[in-house]
C-alpha cells in the first residue's frame, strides 16, 4: 500500500525532474548558439528566419493577445467598480486596472495567448520534422538542429513576446478607460493622467523580465515536446496538447516564483 503510494507520487516527480533537466540542457544549447542567429555576426541569412518567427509568434498573435487583454481589462474594471462604488472609490478603478496590468495581467495574458498559439505550433512543426526524418536529415548533413530550428524561434520569441506584452498591457488599460468613459463619462485626458500617476517604470521593467522568462518557457517546452514525438501523425497531436498544457502551467508557476522573488528582493512596489 505505502509502496504503491510512493510509486504513484514518485513516477510523476521523476518525469518532472527529467523534464526540468532536459529543458535546462536545451536552454543552455539555445543560449550558446544564439549569437549565430544575429545579423552581421551570425550565419548568413539565419536572422531572416528569426525575423519570420518574430512575425509568426508576435505579429500574428497580436489580435488574439490584445482582444484577450481588452476583455479582461473591461471585466476587471467592471467588477472593481461594482465593489469600489460602495465606498465611493470609483476613481480607484483606474489604479486597479493600470497596476494589475503593468504588474501581472499584461505579461500573463500575453503568455497564455502565445502559449496556446505558439507552443502548439512549435511542437507540431518540430514533431512533424521528427516524423518525416527532417531532423535526421539536418543531423546527417552535419548541421546542428539547434542552430537550424530552435535558436531562430527562441530569438524571435525573446523579441516578440516583450513587445506583445507592452501592447497587450496598453489594450488592457485602454479597456478600463472604455468602461469608465461609458459609466462615469471620464475623459481620456484625465484617465491617462491617472494611469501615469499609478504605474511605475520599475513595474514595467519587472513585467518585461517576466515576459522574457515566459517566452523562454513557451519556446523551450514546445520544442522539447516536439522532439519527443515518436511514431506517426497522431503522436504529433498528443505532443501539441502536452506542449500547451505544460507551457501554460509552467508560465503560471514561473509567474508566482518571479512575483515572490521580486517581493522578497524588495523590487516590487508591494514590498
Amino acid at each position, binding site marked *: 500500500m505505502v509502496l504503491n503510494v510512493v510509486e504513484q507520487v514518485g513516477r510523476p516527480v521523476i518525469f518532472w525532474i527529467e523534464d526540468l533537466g532536459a529543458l535546462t540542457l536545451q536552454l543552455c544549447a539555445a543560449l550558446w548558439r544564439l549569437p549565430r542567429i544575429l545579423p552581421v555576426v551570425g550565419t548568413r541569412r539565419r536572422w531572416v528566419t528569426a525575423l519570420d518567427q518574430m512575425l509568426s509568434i508576435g505579429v500574428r498573435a497580436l489580435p488574439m493577445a490584445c482582444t484577450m487583454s481588452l476583455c479582461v481589462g473591461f471585466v476587471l474594471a467592471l467588477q472593481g467598480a461594482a465593489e469600489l462604488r460602495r465606498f465611493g472609490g470609483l476613481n480607484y478603478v483606474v489604479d486597479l486596472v493600470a497596476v494589475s496590468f503593468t504588474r501581472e495581467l499584461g505579461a500573463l495574458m500575453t503568455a497564455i495567448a502565445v502559449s496556446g498559439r505558439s507552443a502548439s505550433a512549435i511542437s507540431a512543426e518540430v514533431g512533424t520534422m521528427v516524423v*518525416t526524418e*527532417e531532423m535526421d536529415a539536418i*543531423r546527417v*548533413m552535419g548541421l546542428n538542429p539547434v542552430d537550424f530550428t530552435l535558436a531562430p524561434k527562441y530569438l524571435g520569441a525573446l523579441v516578440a513576446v516583450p513587445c506583445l506584452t507592452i501592447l497587450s498591457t496598453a489594450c488592457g488599460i485602454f479597456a478600463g478607460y472604455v468602461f469608465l468613459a461609458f459609466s462615469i463619462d471620464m475623459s481620456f485626458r484625465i484617465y491617462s493622467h491617472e494611469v501615469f500617476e499609478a504605474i511605475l517604470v520599475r513595474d514595467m521593467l519587472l513585467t518585461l523580465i517576466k515576459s522574457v522568462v515566459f517566452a523562454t518557457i513557451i519556446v523551450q517546452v514546445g520544442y522539447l515536446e516536439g522532439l519527443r514525438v515518436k511514431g506517426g501523425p497522431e503522436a504529433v497531436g498528443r505532443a501539441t496538447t502536452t506542449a500547451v498544457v505544460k507551457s501554460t502551467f509552467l508560465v503560471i508557476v514561473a509567474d508566482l516564483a518571479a512575483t515572490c522573488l521580486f517581493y522578497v528582493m524588495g523590487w516590487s512596489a508591494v514590498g
Partner: protein
Amino acid sequence: MTTSTADLDAVIRVRDVSVSFGPRRVLDRVSLDVYRGEILVLLGGSGSGKTTLLKQVLGLMKPATGSIVVKGVNITSCTRAELEVVRRHMGVAFQAGALFNSLSVQANVALPLQELTELADSTINLITWIKLWMVGLADVAHLYPNELSGGMRKRAAIARAIALDPEILIFDEPSAGLDPIVAAGLDELIVFLKEILGITILVVTHALDSAFRIGDRIAMLYQGNLIAVDGKDRFLSNTHPRIRQFLDRRPDAVGGGEEKFMAAYLRKFQ
C-alpha cells in the same frame, strides 16, 4: 597486424555491431564492409534490422557493442566535431525524401552549400542548378516539396544529398511507394551517379528487382544477423533457406504454423 587490400578499400567498415531495444536484440554482431566505388545493396524483410544498421552507419544511434569506421574515423567513439566532418563526406536520401517543406526545391538543395561552405551566392545557384539538372528537376526548382510527386521528391532528395559532392551516398528504400517505371528510373539514376561521380553507394531496400538492377554486391539481414554478403550471381545461388524464401517470394506460414502455435500457447498459459 596485417592489412589486406580489401581493408584499405573499405570506406565503411562495420565490426561486430550489436543493438538491443530492451530485451529484443535487433542487430547481433553484424560485420560488413562497403568498398570504395561499389554499390552495396542491403536487403532484408520488415523488422530485419536494416534501418537500425543504417542509423548506426549515419551516427544517429550508437551500438551497444562493436565499431563502425567511416573513412578511417570510428564514429562510435569519435567526438561530435569529428562526426560532423565525417558526415560532410556522406549524402543521404531518406525514404520519404525528408525535404524541408518550408523551403523550395532549389532552397533545399542549396541549404548544405549555404550552411557548410563559404561559396558566393552565384556559385551556389550554379551548383544547385547542375545538381537539379542531373536528377532531371532543373525545371521545377521553384516548386515546394508538397507540390512534387513521390518520385520527384526522391530525386530532389538525391540532388540535396549530392550537393556537397559526397564520397558516400546512402539510400533508404529508394523505390518504396513508387510505380515500377518511376522506380526503374530512380535505379538508373543511382547507377548513373556511381558511374559519373565515382561515389560509393549503400542502398537499403527490400525491393529485389531494384537490388539486382543496381547492386554490385548484395548483403542480407535476417533477424539481426547478416546471413549473406555476395556478388549478384553468388547471392542468387545461395542456399540459405531464408534467402531462398526471399528470392522465391514465399510467405511465412500464417501464425507460424501448428508447432509454433503450441509452443506459444504453452509459454503463455502454463
